């Protein structure tokens, strides 16, 4: 509570908007501009770019699931594409308490109760399942049940729901290896140090399809109780949340969100692990 008090000193105290979501009345960081945060590198299929020189991804391309969703939300709020400013925000610092240098952050951030205590989330824009990727010759490449994963050496990025997932659901006998980012985890898997990595399903699809040719999706986990959803992340007490939720609800109702999912996250039907 002392933390919340500290955070509220510097953000607008009104948590709900009076209902006026016109562009002029939105309390953005910079008037007339919408500042959106995401991490570097910006991974496909969430951020896609045709520009080969942009090795770290290009959120401003408008292509890729999250880039498209971000621009759709901006349009729904009344901003044009040129009004959108992108900011690099490391994943771990996005959901940490403190003042934010962005209006919202979109970076495959799952809504969790712990995080919701210190930041605000919009409604979910994608329901995410965890999946395991392994090399084709890995000992767990053909696992179909969770029990077969007990002896595996798994790894993932620090601070992610994947890391908590390994501990809570898979519970392997060897402690999971935790890396600074997914790239390091992929390197460890390719060198044979890990039997598999745990990532969300769309990332798993991109890794197996485009990044690591001799890898495969071992399977995906059925949604746990309560489900896991990606949400847009706001600083605590940010007044934009209400308006953004209205825009998201419109996008869901009109089918636009589903269309974006089908365009960028198509073909997701990996086998489910059995208990």
């Amino acid at each position: 509570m002392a933390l919340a008090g500290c955070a509220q000193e510097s953000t607008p105290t009104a948590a709900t908007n009076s209902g006026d979501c016109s562009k002029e009345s939105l309390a953005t960081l910079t008037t007339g501009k919408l500042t959106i945060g995401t991490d570097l590198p910006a991974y496909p299929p969430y951020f896609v770019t045709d520009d080969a020189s942009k090795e770290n991804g290009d959120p401003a391309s408008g292509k890729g699931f999250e880039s498209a969703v971000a621009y759709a939300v901006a349009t729904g709020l009344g901003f044009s594409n040129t009004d959108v400013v992108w900011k690099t925000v490391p994943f771990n610092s996005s959901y940490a308490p403190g003042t934010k240098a962005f209006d919202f952050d979109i970076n495959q951030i799952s809504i969790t109760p712990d995080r919701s205590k210190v930041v605000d989330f919009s409604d979910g824009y994608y329901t995410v399942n965890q999946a395991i990727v392994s090399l084709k010759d890995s000992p767990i490449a053909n696992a179909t049940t969770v029990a077969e994963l007990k002896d595996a050496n798994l790894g993932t990025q620090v601070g992610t729901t994947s890391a908590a997932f390994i501990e809570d659901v898979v519970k392997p006998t060897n402690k999971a290896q935790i890396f600074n980012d997914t790239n390091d985890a992929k390197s460890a898997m390719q060198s044979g140090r890990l039997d598999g990595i745990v990532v969300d399903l769309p990332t798993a699809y991109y890794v197996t399809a485009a990044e690591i040719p001799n890898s495969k999706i071992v399977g995906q986990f059925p949604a746990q109780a309560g489900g896991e959803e990606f949400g847009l992340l706001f600083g605590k007490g940010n007044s934009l949340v209400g308006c953004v939720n209205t825009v998201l609800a419109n996008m869901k109702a009109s089918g636009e969100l589903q269309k974006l999912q089908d365009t960028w996250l198509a073909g997701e039907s990996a086998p489910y692990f059995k208990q």
Partner: protein
Amino acid sequence: MTTDVQGAPAPGTDIAYVDPTRRALSQKRARKNALSGILSLFAFLFIICFIVSRTPGWATVQETFFNYEEFVKTLPGLLEAFLLNIRIFLIAEPLILILGLAVALARTLKSPIFLPIRVIATLYVDIFRGIPTILVIFLLGFGIPALRLVGVPNDAVFWGTTALVLSYGAYVAEVFRAGIGSVHGSQTMAARSLGLNMWQTNRHVVLPQAIRNVIPPLLNDFISLQKDTALIAVLGPIEVLRQAQIDTSSSFNYTPYVGAALLFILLTIPMTRFADWIQLRTMKQRRIAGTS
């Protein structure tokens, strides 16, 4: 001839003689000094605590960094992870000393036939003092397993420890070289004129003095190594820094970081006091025996 004064040491021992009255006076003064020192320390601590606890942000800082429940909850996990750090530096330190000494000796070889060895040793020192330790850890820890060579171990802790040994070996080699250089040339000349060959000179005359001279900087590097074991976190194994990071990323309370820092300090303080003690003892010995 001399009266047997009570308390005087037997002749021939190397303890300096102190008159009993003078000793009693100096002990009394030492006790008074100690007492006033302790009183002053407590008064200082009290004033600091008073001022700090009255500052406006203190409650927040205490909640975020010094949360007792969070500390107690995460301490067992941190301790377990810290065992990995301890294991790493206990294995690394002897290897570093051996490697450093070997490289230092290699650089002091005089004969022209040994030029390739001197060049390799110099290159090794230059390269590994120039590259940041974390970069070496990345190169070895991710790069070499990626080659998938047969027979080469894949373990993260193995490559992390190797990277630390290579990196610190370069520093320690220079420390040893400075130690060898600090032994006066006359020692070598005297040893040679007594008929010892180069190897015996080094082994019995130069190196004992050289090593004794550089024990403080070596202990310094050892303490630094203890802290740098935390860098191995980037390769995946859960050592104390990574464990603190995992704890922090779910609760957003930074007390685990403070806990990890505390563990490191508790480890290095005995080492630093030991280093101080060695330095004091060396100075005392020098004063009595005369400089070497």
